[in-house]
């Protein structure tokens, strides 16, 4: 297909604003699938795929429209994958900016829209759900027009549900979005914008060919990582996998690589031909590093091998997940895992628990710290317990947070951000009612319960997005927790010098509540180095006897003690003290005590 007949686009939208419904309508309207197949093949595709043992999901669908080839490229849906989103957007020349006529713009949409604008994409604004009674399409259209600096007359109004206006969207894609402008005669270059793993066929790369063309069975090379492989199969989704002998400049498709390790092929890398390699890779490749870390421990220590296997399997599909074995004196054997962000952590945790049926104990999340030691050596610390005492400086990651709230909550949000060591950047009215606030915040202050707090202080109205703003030096200290004189590694935390005291105090108070009284007094202390900053005492029990024990009671009392003993075994032993697992989560839930 000549490039002037190709249009590559994605849809930028908030969850529930109708992205997948619109995608379904596009497939129907272009007769890529019939209505009946729609239901059977697409809506149930996940189940079907599972039954067949195929785990490749369509990341890009090719549809025909009035003599053109349209490629709809899917973008990952959440904040932790900003980089992946940016790569997917880079594979396009245009984007539909889809907004719910009733809900208006959300922070996530805005962030991705800005990302699209930064990538010089042609934005086609679309207001969806105009059929809803509470819809305000005029307002939404005005907001959209202002955002992209266009006329509100250019804003398309549709109902993806009923199909009204969708044809006009397809026409607009052809008319407004420019065709690809690569050089078909140059050495081949393709951008990897996503990848997947299939247990039979290995890593599948989703690519956008920029220059030249690729052929099946050709030897290829990933330019940043240097990985070499043979293209076992080239193809595109329509919407099922359709092999093709060639992928040409401007086209979007997949490459089956046969590679057995997803980390060998990273999103953002450039594929080229081994025989006629390009001189330069495409710009923009970044080695994405995890920013949020947490220890994952099996509740039952016997489940350690299952956890290891589960992480290995997850990693196959998720190159951004990193982990290494960790041994905690309090929690036993587990893994320290690195995530792109909080949501990524939640997703991984949920998948481990749901898909692998594991009972997990997840420690309080922390961020990556860059530490300059006294000797001048620079190290990266992923675990508070490993933070050395003798240090020159500590740097912590900061984020640029964009928060959209109704105007009446601006004060509450500013207060929260200030509490969390945030620096105000700027504020703008998106409409009369909706305000965009930009703050720089230490990621560490966000990983614990920032999002929950934001939601609760704005009655759920705030929407939030962030991207990383780099590392900055901070007055940070390591706070240790000692139970009966023993440091509990799993409870150590890094805090800003000013908040170390209140956090230490809150933590030991919480632990006093969580740790049951023992047969002796137990001191719970928070300390910075050798200096104790907070202390609580769990008073010893004075009495604990089974009142009566005669002939008829013996079985029941014995079972009672056996249960008590079993309960003790489930507790973690810190020195002579039995600490229930909930206590270890106390750090995580510290925020609940705040207002």
């Amino acid at each position, binding site marked *: 297909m000549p490039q002037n007949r190709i249009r590559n686009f994605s849809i930028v939208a908030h969850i529930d604003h109708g992205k997948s419904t619109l995608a379904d309508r596009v497939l129907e309207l272009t007769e890529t699938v019939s209505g009946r197949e729609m239901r059977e093949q697409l809506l149930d595709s996940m189940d079907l795929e599972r039954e067949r043992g195929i785990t490749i999901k369509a990341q890009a669908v090719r549809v025909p429209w009035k003599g053109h080839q349209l490629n709809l490229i899917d973008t990952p849906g959440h904040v932790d994958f900003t980089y992946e989103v940016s790569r997917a957007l880079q594979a396009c020349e245009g984007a539909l900016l889809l907004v719910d006529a009733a809900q208006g713009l959300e922070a996530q949409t805005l962030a991705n829209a800005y990302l699209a604008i930064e990538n010089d994409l042609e934005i086609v604004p679309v207001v969806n759900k105009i059929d809803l009674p509470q819809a305000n399409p005029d307002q939404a259209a005005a907001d959209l027009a202002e955002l992209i600096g266009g006329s509100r007359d250019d804003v398309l109004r549709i109902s993806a549900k009923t199909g009204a206006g969708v044809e006009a969207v397809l026409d607009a894609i052809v008319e407004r979005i420019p065709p690809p402008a690569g050089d078909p005669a140059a050495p081949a270059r393709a951008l990897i914008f996503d990848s997947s793993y299939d247990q039979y066929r290995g890593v599948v790369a989703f690519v956008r060919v920029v220059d030249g063309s690729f052929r099946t069975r050709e030897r290829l090379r990933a330019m940043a990582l240097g990985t070499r492989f043979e293209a076992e199969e080239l193809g595109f989704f329509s919407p099922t996998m359709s092999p093709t002998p060639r992928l040409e400049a401007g086209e979007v498709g997949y490459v089956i690589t046969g590679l057995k390790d997803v980390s060998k092929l990273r999103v953002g890398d450039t594929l080229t031909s081994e025989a006629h390699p390009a001189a330069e890779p495409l710009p923009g490749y970044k080695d994405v590093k995890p920013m949020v870390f947490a220890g994952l421990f099996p509740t039952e220590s016997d489940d350690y091998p299952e956890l290891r296997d589960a992480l290995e399997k997850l990693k196959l599909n998720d190159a951004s997940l990193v982990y290494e074995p960790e041994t905690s004196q309090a929690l036993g054997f587990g893994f320290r895992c690195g995530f792109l962000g909080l949501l990524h952590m939640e997703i991984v945790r949920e998948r481990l628990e749901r898909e692998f049926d594991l009972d997990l104990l997840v420690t309080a999340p922390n961020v990556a710290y860059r530490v300059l030691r006294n000797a001048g050596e620079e190290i990266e610390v992923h675990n508070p317990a490993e933070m050395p005492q003798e240090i020159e400086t500590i740097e912590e990651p900061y984020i640029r947070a964009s928060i959209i709230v109704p105007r009446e909550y601006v004060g509450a949000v500013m207060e929260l951000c200030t509490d969390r060591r945030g620096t105000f950047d700027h504020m703008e009215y998106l409409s009369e009612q909706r305000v965009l606030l930009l703050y720089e915040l230490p990621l560490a202050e966000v990983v614990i319960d920032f999002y929950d707090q934001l939601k609760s202080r704005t009655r759920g109205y705030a929407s939030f997005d962030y991207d990383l703003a780099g590392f900055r030096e901070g007055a940070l200290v390591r706070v240790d927790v000692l139970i009966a004189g023993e440091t509990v590694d799993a409870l150590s935390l890094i805090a800003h010098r000013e908040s170390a005291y209140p956090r230490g105090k809150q933590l030991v108070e919480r632990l006093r509540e969580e740790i049951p009284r023992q047969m002796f007094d137990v001191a719970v202390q928070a300390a910075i180095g050798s200096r104790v900053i907070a202390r609580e005492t769990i008073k010893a029990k004075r*009495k604990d006897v089974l009142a009566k024990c005669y002939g008829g009671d013996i079985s029941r009392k014995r079972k009672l003690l056996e249960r*008590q003993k079993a309960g003790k075994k489930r507790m973690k032993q810190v020195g002579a003290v039995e600490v229930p697992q909930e206590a270890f989560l106390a750090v995580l839930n510290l925020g609940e005590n705040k207002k």
Partner: protein
Amino acid sequence: MSAHARHLYVHLPFCAHRCGYCDFVTAIGRRGEHGTYVDALLAELRLESHLLAPELDTIFLGGGTPTFTEPAQLERLLAALPPAAEVTVEANPETMTAELARLLRRTGVTRVSLGAQSFQPALLNVLERRAGPDVVRRAFYRVRDAKFDNISLDLLYGIPGQSPADLQRDLSEALALGPEHLSCYELEAKPGTRFTHAHGAELSRQAESMETYFEHVVERLTAAGYRWYETANFCLQGERAGGRDLRARHNLGYWLGRDYLGIGLGAVSTIESERRRNTPRLAEYVAALGRATTPSRDVEALPDEVRSRERLMLGLRLDDPLLLETVASAIDEEALARLERLGLLRRTGVNGSQALALTTRGRHLGGSVTAELMA
């Protein structure tokens, strides 16, 4: 099973009223049925007599309220039971007439255990006990007048609303009567009882302030010359005991992990590697024995390791050191060392054999210590 149990428990379930805190197998009133019930008991005794040793050490009549049983039927039962060195009957103060006391004496009863519970009218009221303090004292004297030289009093502490001063008053009143033996129990709000429904919230509120009551009881009674020989039991010793061992011999059988036969409604027996519990349904029990067949029973297997654990649990309730060799398999050695370091338990020797003894603090924490020590 061979014949060797030297302890016999007889359950008499009848009561005038079911107290709110009670979770024993009881039957209210049913005066007309006492005769048939005693028939059933004696039938069961005949069926099970092969399990008993030729000479019994102890018999214990518990309830219910054994002394609420019609006197004629109670007398018939006592007369039919085999002789034993100790025969104890549980009694409620309001049932204790002078005639009944004499009847018990005449029929070979050697020991009476009187359920006083408290001497404070308000607290007795909370417990739904019918006897006031005067009735409790009068009952005690009637038993004494019938020449009983081994009387035990039951006291409860931790009653909703009981102040530390109330506790001291109850202890003074009890000591003033000079009983040979005292059992002091903390009131347990057992789930599902009416009492817990009514007072559970109050009990958990006062739990912490009442934590010291047990210490008060132990201090006061040992200061008065009583031997704290079991977690909840005290007896006179030495000179004041006239050289007698006044520990409850029947209960000592339980605590030493010996076999016992229980007959009657809901009664429990432990014979070798089996524990069984009779049906708690009166009609079913009586009907089965009316046909001279054994009543339906729950049976629990007691493999060696379980009996060993029970010996540990029960043995640690006593003040006498527990021989290590009898419970070694039930013990977590690491926990033993830990508890020793914490000063809750010590190793000692008895006739050249290793034994375990709880320290005073260890005894106050006996439940946790045992749970910890169990392998």
